[in-house]
């Protein structure tokens, strides 16, 4: 089945140690999103790619970066994780000709 895959599902890192989260999709969607979701809160959009064009939300900290080497893959890099960055990170995709986003299962990040 076509889907959105996130690896790893659980990631533990140390304070200040760079970490990369991965998202891949078999839907061939040209738009990909990264959301941060803290416990019992709504997802918060960090940034998105429309094809290769990167769109950063105004309040996304510089500590968060992203790469999209091809249509299928998108990475979230946290350069120096702080305790406040512990959250679930959700990847979503959408075909630009449609309106619906499809979400991956998320990666739960723990910062020690």
């Amino acid at each position, binding site marked *: 089945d076509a889907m959105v895959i996130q690896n790893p599902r659980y990631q533990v890192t140390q304070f200040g140690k760079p970490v990369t989260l991965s998202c891949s999709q078999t839907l061939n969607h040209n*738009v990909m*999103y990264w959301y941060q979701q803290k416990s*019992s*809160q*709504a*997802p918060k*959009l960090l940034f*998105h790619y*429309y094809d290769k*064009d990167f*769109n950063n939300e105004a309040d996304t900290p510089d500590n968060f970066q992203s790469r999209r080497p091809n249509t299928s893959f998108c990475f979230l890099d946290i350069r120096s994780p702080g305790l406040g960055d512990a959250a*679930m990170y*959700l990847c*979503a995709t*959408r075909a*630009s*000709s*449609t*309106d*619906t*986003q*499809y*979400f*991956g*299962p*998320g990666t*739960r990040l723990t910062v020690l």
Partner: protein
Amino acid sequence: AQTVTQSQPEMSVQEAETVTLSCTYDTSENNYYLFWYKQPPSRQMILVIRQEAYKQQNATENRFSVNFQKAAKSFSLKISDSQLGDTAMYFCAFMEGYGGSQGNLIFGKGTKLSVKP
């Protein structure tokens, strides 16, 4: 700026009964989409139902239906014949325009629904 408000942080319902989750939104746009997403305890966000603002007819997907009141900017979700598997966090979400290069979702804070046997 668009906002989405879900005024019920938590709700519970008995199995097989009907429950309605509320959502209101604020926008000056005329063209937009509304969604209800479900996030079970396993945390995968799943689309439940969607509504196009230009359509007056309320969307229906099996046991799930919406009451879309455009003038009142209200978009409630009705779940009929509730099942234990409906236990989840439900998010109401808004998307302006027709998607394209943006298509960003604005989420409400969610309603935690518990279905009790």
